[in-house]
């Protein structure tokens, strides 16, 4: 009788386990994939195919990631798997226990160390895995350079000479996009890198602690450089209201000889009807070494919750054997030690990267180190400077005040 009871119990247990293993899990997944929505759905389907018990409910967050995530975090309804940017927002979520520490995952171990600090909270928790390495650079029309006898300049002074020559030839020298926040990736970040980060390599720590001195002539020059390009008429007509998408279209249509944009646009800007080259933005003064940008792309994080184990499986897959599905769709710069599959990267970008990695000092992109509270201020102040509402020095003082207040909070 007792034996029979034990056997029945074992049978019931086995059935229970079998049904549990067969149970399908639906992972909620909010990813920023406005540029590759179908491809993202396709590689998530591939993951589900390889892991039949895990179905994915995918939401494409077209833009404003933090706007999407904040109410979810507040209401305790975070998706299991999310896109996340490096910087203070994600750090705050992991320190509150809303995101999990990814330090011990395979994805973290397969990621190059250079892109981890931006995704590490002040308490030392790794809240995200970068989606790639990024930089911003100047794209230019090769034929126009040849026609005008120009070569990529090596410093700011030479850059101004080059712009003047292009202007004299009756063409727009460079496109800037102050109409939205995207010029923070270009003029602002390169200005900050060469003027401020060059002097304070521990700038990220200083920002965190509220000790970054920005009410200075060096920081004011970040704004002054953009103002100079605008005032001299090197930028496109109607520059102040030009947005990111407008600017890209203008370059593709050949309306400007140069476009200052991110490496993530290489897929679009290198496929123009005319030949396009790239060079490192010369925001350095004559005789000084350039400080180029090496930064992270929007990455991925996992929320605390009942499905975190399956979400980590997806994270490890995207940063492992499934990586090529994602990378091939976007054509971006890999962040993995071992991409575990074929990587698609334009030769011009590869060459650029070889040069980029030879620099001893680099700096990140703006959103990785400035307080979240000041993010919109970067371009709003730029607009105020361009329209003479503020001098560059006043803009620097206003940013300094806002950054300090944010830390005080």
């Amino acid at each position, binding site marked *: 009788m007792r034996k029979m009871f034990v056997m029945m119990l074992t049978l019931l247990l086995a059935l229970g386990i079998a049904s549990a293993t067969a149970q399908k899990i639906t992972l909620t997944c909010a990813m920023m994939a406005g540029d590759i929505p179908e491809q993202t759905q396709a590689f998530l389907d591939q993951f589900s195919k390889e892991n039949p018990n895990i179905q994915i409910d995918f939401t494409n967050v077209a833009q404003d990631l933090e706007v999407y995530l*904040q109410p979810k975090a507040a209401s305790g309804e975070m998706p299991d798997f999310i896109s996340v940017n490096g910087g203070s927002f994600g750090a705050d979520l992991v320190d509150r226990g809303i995101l999990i520490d990814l330090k011990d995952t395979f994805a973290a171990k397969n990621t190059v160390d250079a892109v981890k600090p931006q995704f590490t909270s002040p308490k030392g928790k790794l809240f995200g895995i970068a989606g790639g390495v990024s930089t911003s650079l100047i794209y230019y029309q090769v034929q126009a350079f040849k026609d005008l006898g120009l070569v990529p300049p090596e410093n700011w002074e030479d850059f101004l000479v080059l712009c003047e020559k292009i202007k004299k030839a009756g063409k727009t020298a460079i496109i800037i996009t102050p109409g939205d926040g995207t010029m923070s990736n270009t003029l602002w970040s390169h200005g900050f890198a060469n003027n401020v980060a060059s002097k304070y390599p521990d700038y990220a720590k200083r920002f965190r602690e509220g000790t970054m001195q920005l009410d200075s002539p060096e920081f004011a020059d970040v704004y002054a450089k953009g103002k100079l390009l605008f005032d001299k008429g090197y930028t496109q007509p109607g520059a*102040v209201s030009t947005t990111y998408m407008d600017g890209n279209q203008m370059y593709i249509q050949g309306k400007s000889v140069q476009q200052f944009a991110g490496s993530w646009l290489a897929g679009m800007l290198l496929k123009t009807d005319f030949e396009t080259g790239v060079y490192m933005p010369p925001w350095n003064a004559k005789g000084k070494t350039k400080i180029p940008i090496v930064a992270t792309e929007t990455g991925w994080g996992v929320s605390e919750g009942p499905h975190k184990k399956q979400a980590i499986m997806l994270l490890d897959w995207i940063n492992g054997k499934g990586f090529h599905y994602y990378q091939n769709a976007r054509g971006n710069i890999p962040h993995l030690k071992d991409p575990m599959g074929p990587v698609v990267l334009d030769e011009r970008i590869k060459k650029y990267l070889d040069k980029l990695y030879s620099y001893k000092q680099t700096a990140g992109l703006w959103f990785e180190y400035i307080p979240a*509270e000041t993010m919109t201020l970067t371009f709003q102040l730029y607009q105020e400077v361009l329209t003479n509402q503020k001098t560059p020095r006043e803009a620097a003082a206003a940013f300094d005040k806002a950054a300090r207040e944010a830390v005080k909070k």
Partner: protein
Amino acid sequence: MPGAVFSQARRRQIACLLFTIPALAVVGLFFLFPMLRALVLSFTSWDGIARTWQWVGLKNFKAVVTDSTFRQISFNTVYLAIIYVPVLNVIALLLAVAVYNAGKAGNLYKAMLFFPNLLSMTVIAMIWSIIYRYDGILNQFLKAVGLKALMQDWLGQIRTVLPAMSVTIIWFAVGYYLLIYLAGLNTVPVEIYESAEVEGVSPWQKLTRITIPLIAPAITINAVLSTIGIITLFDLPFVLTRGGPGFKSQTIAMHVYAYAYQQLRTRYALALAVILGVFAVLITTVLLAFLRRREEAAQ
């Protein structure tokens, strides 16, 4: 009925109350509760995510009012209201009178003028951003008619951004307000106009002495609705200008969003939303009292 617990009238009252409960519950749950919750939270240190907070009194309100942008965003909102409410209502009224007298073509005009209301404000903003950009339709038109000197960055200059935005909002809204005026005009007895014709009253006198006094209730409705609409304006500037250049076209409603989701200062967003709500109620009350008095005087 002998022995009845409630009288007929009382039973009717209870029935009415029971029938309104579902609607009241919806309004209470989805409107009143969040509103009161936001009001309470605006006096706390809530950061938008945490489950706990502390009472901070008026600190958030003080921070919002002393913020360097507060004066600018208040100015923008009041500027838009001052331009928009009278200009919109005058244009809508004149167009309504014209359409009213247009005979069979009136329906076509109504459809044309109301058409923008069928589109979302985001679509409207996208269309007008194409019109206003430097290589856009407006500048191309100016160039074509020999007015190249007038070509400019309409949305990128501090002196043109708010007027440009006002034109867009009026273009969008005029059809809606026109319909309300038309409804008002249809209530005016035709005999009055016929008598006026016989008496040799001029069109201007007909408008000011007959039409306007008799459609005063429609004017009140339109003035109040357009004031509330403009004070709480968010989507159009958000898409069209993002509040720029700088903060020159940022409205209070946009700044609530900026505090909450761009600067992640939820407590300030709540405080500013409360200020905006109180401001809207005050303005509407004053306007309503003034217009009601005018209505009574007209009658």
